[in-house]
């Protein structure tokens, strides 16, 4: 005999409530009740779930209405009373769920409560900072702090880039035939070109605002952003393609430096390059560093798991990449417009030095304050990221 659910007369109708008569008492006299067994031992048939639901349903629907509004229109759509009511409703909803899980076998009711609790949870513990606060925090502390957090990766990428430039420079100067090896898509700028042609190429005419912004800067920006995003994302392939991309791009730079050096146009070429190059090349180096930090999280996970490491490194890398995209926008405008506008080498150098100072100061800004605070905020962010240690 299955000892399950034996009717216990002493426990029948528990909890005792006057307004919920037992089901068999509902049958009016005269109605025919069919029974399947001769020895009739009618069990207690009062539905606990129905009673449970009756008392609480109104609270649930009120909460659901609030949650739907919040999901669609955000926190500002609530009145003060509603905003104050929300936590209370949420807590009573969670209490309902806890009870329902241990008492209720109505699946639809359980699923509804589970669903509503999760939705309410996501709303109640949802993001609380506004877009403007986010942006302000990003520019004020977030970006510089993340760049500084990647300082060793930046150093490594920078050294790699400098080394590539040097190698190409020395190699091409030793043997000009190597120029075509490093620079694969050749244009007019080769050793065959005359110095005058090359010089003219460095000082092109201003072709109007529309061409500069819309055609040239636009193209440069899209192109560079794609390269930077690839540089970053390919960090997942253990960083190998990231390193290759960095080396490849800076070898080209070194080859051109050698070309213009040999033609006696070094000063002019560096001016032509650095007006936007300071911004653009540092952005590329930053994206390479972000890619390397991703690679490091996979290759050398250290104490925590790879997944957790990726999340931690990813936070800084993603912040840096947003900065990179903005820097490339600036670089595109500098290259597309101002390089043609400022057709004097000395002006170009001034702009280059100005941008260099600006970026350095910006990335080092807020350091004294954040040295202690950054630890605190990052610990805080960590804590808010996982409220369930």
């Amino acid at each position: 005999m299955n000892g399950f659910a034996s009717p216990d007369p002493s426990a029948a109708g528990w909890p005792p409530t006057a307004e919920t008569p037992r089901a068999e008492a509902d049958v009016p006299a005269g109605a025919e009740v069919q029974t399947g067994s001769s020895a009739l031992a009618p069990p207690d048939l009062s539905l606990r779930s129905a009673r449970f639901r009756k008392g609480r349903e109104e609270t649930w629907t009120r909460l659901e209405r609030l949650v739907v509004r919040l999901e669609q229109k955000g926190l500002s759509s609530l009145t003060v009373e509603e905003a104050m009511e929300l936590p209370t409703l949420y807590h009573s909803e969670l209490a309902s769920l806890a009870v329902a899980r241990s008492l209720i076998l109505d699946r639809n009711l359980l699923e509804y409560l589970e669903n509503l609790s999760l939705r309410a949870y996501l709303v109640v513990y949802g993001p609380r900072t506004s877009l403007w606060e986010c942006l302000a925090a990003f520019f004020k502390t977030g970006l510089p702090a993340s760049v500084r957090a990647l300082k060793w990766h930046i150093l490594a990428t920078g050294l790699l880039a400098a080394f590539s430039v040097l190698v190409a420079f020395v190699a091409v100067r030793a043997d000009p035939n190597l120029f075509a090896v490093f620079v694969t898509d050749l244009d007019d700028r080769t050793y065959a070109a005359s110095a005058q042609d090359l010089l003219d190429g460095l000082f092109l005419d201003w072709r109007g605002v529309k061409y500069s912004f819309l055609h040239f800067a636009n193209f440069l920006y899209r192109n560079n952003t794609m390269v930077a995003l690839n540089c970053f994302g390919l960090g997942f392939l253990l960083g190998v393609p990231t390193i290759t991309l960095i080396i490849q791009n800076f070898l080209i730079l070194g080859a051109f430096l050698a070309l213009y050096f040999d033609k006696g146009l070094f000063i002019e070429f560096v001016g032509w390059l650095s007006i936007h190059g300071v911004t653009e090349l540092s952005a590329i180096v930053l994206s390479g560093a972000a890619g390397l930090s991703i690679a490091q999280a996979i290759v050398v996970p250290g104490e925590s798991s790879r997944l957790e490491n990726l999340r931690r490194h990813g936070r800084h890398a993603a912040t840096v990449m947003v900065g990179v995209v903005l820097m490339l926008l600036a670089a595109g405008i500098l290259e597309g417009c101002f390089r043609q506008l400022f057709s004097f080498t000395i002006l170009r150098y001034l702009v280059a030095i100005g941008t260099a100072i600006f970026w350095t100061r910006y990335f080092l800004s807020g350091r004294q304050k954040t040295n202690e605070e950054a630890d605190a905020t990052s610990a805080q962010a960590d804590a808010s990221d996982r409220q369930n240690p």
Partner: protein
Amino acid sequence: MKRKPQNLVLEAGPPRPPKQPEDLRVIISPEGLPLAVTLASVSARINTFLMDLIFIFIGVELIDALISFFEQDAEDAFHWSSLFSFILVNLYFIFFELAWQGRTPGKTLNGLRVVNRHGGELTPTAVVGRNLTRMVELFLPLQMLFYASETFGFNIYAVIIAVWVSGFAFLPYFQKDHLRLGDLIGGTMVITMPKKKLLPDLSQVFGDSLASGSKPLFAFSAEQLSIYGHQELQALENILRVVENLPTPKATSLVGLKVAAEKIRRRVSFAPPIPEGQELRFLVDFYTALRAVLEKALLFGHYKFNQYFDKPPLSPPRLKTPGSGPKRPLPPQGRMFIRVDRS
């Protein structure tokens, strides 16, 4: 006493130990209550992504149309639209996931949502991070395949790179939490959260369509109600929910109802035959009585999974927070499971 499985409508197949659902995860709310979340399946996510791509495509076409309306010069128009399309493609996901709390239009339509893997707030950094990788996940492999195609001469290196790189796109298939590359960086996961409606209680819903109103017509003994368990109750609930949505004359004359009622009648040894047209009444009465009895048993700590097993399926695995120290056992859930002794 070991029961032999018979030919039953409400049986869970041949007896085998209940399986743990694979796509369930648990986040613990700050109040300490475990909340179950369902991971979005890979196919649902692909579906969603394609829908979003269609929306982006429509957006790009709209931009094109608008620009060609305002800008007469063909070349300028091309540059304008390339710029705005670039911005749209790159900011679409980031914008919507920030503004709509982890949802894009496609995700909203499919009931998917991006959440923090650890149960915390979905930060803007996480949203940006998870969308920065789309370039290498999708556009780079496509670009490489394009280069590898006939147009540029068959390039074996491009093919190799394309195959290598496109491995990213298949990561969700191999990752047990269906995480995409961007989810790894952002510390996020995608869950499915279709809205559930609170339907009327089944014990009361059929009042109008049944001859005897909401009054029960059939009564069952304790022994008859001690056979089935939780799973069969839910199977019966499913049947009744289907019937609930049908118009009244059709509902009472359903053939399936007759079969189900007859099988239950035999299984629980209910002696008198069920009168014609009273099958729905029988099922509703049996459902109500069974639920009442099982719920009461639950109150005393007795849980019965189905007619073969007293043990419930294992509770879903808790989301691991890697690097957070030694594993802790699952917190006690609301329900206590006690094995019923059989004599």
